[in-house]
């Protein structure tokens, strides 16, 4: 018989998170110049208010009990907001808007996933839309930091590949009633090839790798066919090697990998500084706003794990990584008992994606893997990234059958 464990005490945890957020706010305000103080207070005030509305609403209206997943997400987002407000106080409100869109997307996607017929209907338009968006990006985007993956509309910039991550999992898992009878991966392989190919052409290799990894997870969960997956991986490996042979400039992007200390002031500049400053933070960090890594380029995005290590300490950095692992364990544990195989595949794919992305980020800045420029889920600054992470969380939430206890699932 399985052991029953009680959910965490929501009121207590919410209280602790609020104290954490207010402590961060106090620290930030005490260090900010006068012109930024209002913006920072407004950012945290709205964020805490939305947080309370979400928890009270879902607890009282939807009668939910388990909030561990959301508590982790709200805490990690708080850390991200604190770092953004500390390094770029003028961009804190902009980041908050992205977070709010992400939370809205999280709630909306939970509602959308409730009706599996609706999901089944939407999978083809979603797939066409995703490929179309990537094609549009490929044609109209301009190169930013070596990759052609940003679109600019007026003063707003978006990274479509982040949003396509959500659609990729949605389409890959949405086989529904055909899941057991239709194990053919052909259509999904074509869709995945189109997405990964487009990302490769954009030189967004980190995201391409994340998509490929997610493709492997979804394919395995859908078919359980190891031979097809080995074949696909072999073809992908050979394709990658051919690209490296005929397009040597691709390999040049990773030239410093494995020996960044030899390129201390050139291509290994970011990683070497990240490692130095991460270590200087010690167990409890140097304090929010007191770090040195914040002055390095992309400190709040690609190198944000280093900033966390330096300013919040190694213990908190370790705990953050543990939370990504816990989300995956949670998804796997609940997948057997999910209301549909669709939810099981979505949750495992979403949590694997987050863990893989976090690994690429953390190992990248420490030179264990090449630095691919991917973000750390929930913490890195960037609207598209944080929106994507919150929407992925809806997939993880859906695997728990108690999520749709109130009203049930429409199949």
């Amino acid at each position, binding site marked *: 018989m*399985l052991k029953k464990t009680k959910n965490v005490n929501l009121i207590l945890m919410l209280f602790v998170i609020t104290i954490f957020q207010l402590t961060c706010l106090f620290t930030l305000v005490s260090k900010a110049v006068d012109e930024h103080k209002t913006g920072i207070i407004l950012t945290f005030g709205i964020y805490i208010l939305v947080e309370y509305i979400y928890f009270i609403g879902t607890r009282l209206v939807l009668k939910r009990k*388990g909030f561990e997943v959301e508590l982790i997400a709200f*805490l990690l987002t708080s850390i991200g907001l604190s770092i953004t407000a500390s390094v770029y106080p003028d961009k804190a409100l902009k980041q908050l808007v992205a977070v709010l869109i992400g939370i809205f997307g999280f709630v909306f996607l939970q509602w959308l996933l409730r009706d599996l017929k609706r999901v089944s209907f939407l999978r083809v338009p979603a797939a066409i839309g995703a490929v179309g968006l990537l094609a549009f990006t490929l044609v109209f985007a301009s190169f930013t930091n070596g990759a052609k993956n940003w679109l600019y509309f007026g003063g707003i910039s978006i990274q479509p590949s982040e949003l396509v991550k959500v659609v990729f999992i949605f389409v890959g898992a949405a086989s529904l009633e055909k899941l057991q009878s239709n194990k053919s991966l052909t259509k999904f392989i074509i869709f995945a090839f189109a997405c990964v190919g487009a990302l490769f052409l954009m030189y967004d290799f980190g995201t391409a790798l994340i998509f490929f990894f997610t493709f492997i997870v979804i394919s395995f969960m859908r078919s359980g066919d190891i031979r097809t997956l080995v074949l696909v991986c072999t073809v992908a490996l050979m394709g990658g090697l051919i690209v490296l042979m005929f397009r040597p400039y691709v390999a040049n992007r990773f030239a410093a990998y494995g020996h960044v200390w030899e390129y201390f002031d050139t291509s290994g500049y970011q990683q070497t500084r990240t490692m130095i400053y991460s270590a200087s933070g010690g167990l409890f960090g140097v304090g929010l706003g007191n770090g040195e890594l914040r002055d390095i380029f992309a400190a709040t995005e690609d190198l944000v794990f280093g900033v966390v290590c330096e300013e*919040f300490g190694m213990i908190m950095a370790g705990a953050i990584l543990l939370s990504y692992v816990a989300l995956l364990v949670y998804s796997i544990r609940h997948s*057997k008992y999910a209301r549909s195989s669709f939810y099981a595949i979505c949750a495992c794919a979403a949590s694997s994606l987050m863990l893989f992305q976090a690994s690429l980020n953390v190992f990248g800045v420490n030179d264990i893997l090449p630095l691919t420029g991917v973000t750390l889920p929930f913490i890195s600054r960037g609207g598209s990234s944080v929106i994507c992470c919150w929407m992925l969380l809806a997939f993880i939430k859906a695997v728990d059958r108690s999520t749709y206890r109130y009203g049930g699932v429409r199949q």
Partner: protein
Amino acid sequence: MLELEYLMRYVLCILAIAVIINCVWSLIRLRPDKKVYAILLNMANDEQHPITCYETSVGRSKSCDIIFTNSTVSRSHAVVALRKDGFYVFDTESKTGVYVNGEKIQKSEKLSDGDVIAFGTAIMKFYIGSEADNDISHKKDENIKLSRLVNLADNTEFTLDGDFITIGREKGSNIEISAPYVSRRQAEVFKYNNHWYIKNFGKITKTALNGDAIFSDTPLYDGDVIRIGDFEFLYEEI
């Protein structure tokens, strides 16, 4: 001020760790309640398969929730799924098909309490609710029914008793058919765990059940028609 800032480093760390460790510990340890929604009772050996998931796969593959080693069961044979309006069984492109109360299902079929489901030659009785809700041992006794075969040409009745009856051209067969295209030992109707099955032995003429040729041991259900050449027999439960 500096002392306060120094203190806050520890406060922030402790608060964040408290939340993360609590939530992570809960996430890792949290498991859904294991509730038995229904039971599949294997009529061959009385083995019970509790259905605890919303979707339970049945097949020969090790990845299935309920595994049968019988060669008539496909690797991924069927899925028993709990939907909002009740249980359904889905045939997942199995070779031998899924039968509910003797009727071959097309894609899916809604299940009711007490339905007999055949996955190949694996015959299961379906009970909604847990073992405690169902007095399965009592219900098993109800399955012992008297059956007969009726020759549709002349309405001659053959009551099925004992463990088996033989059908064929051979003298001494329980049901003797004198036709050159009928094998000496054409078919056998036998009882296995309180259920009647038919097995084909005919080489020239195949024994057919409800129009389909029989290739393996096939369960019989009330109203089934056995055809051997021009001869037809109705299987009836009395």
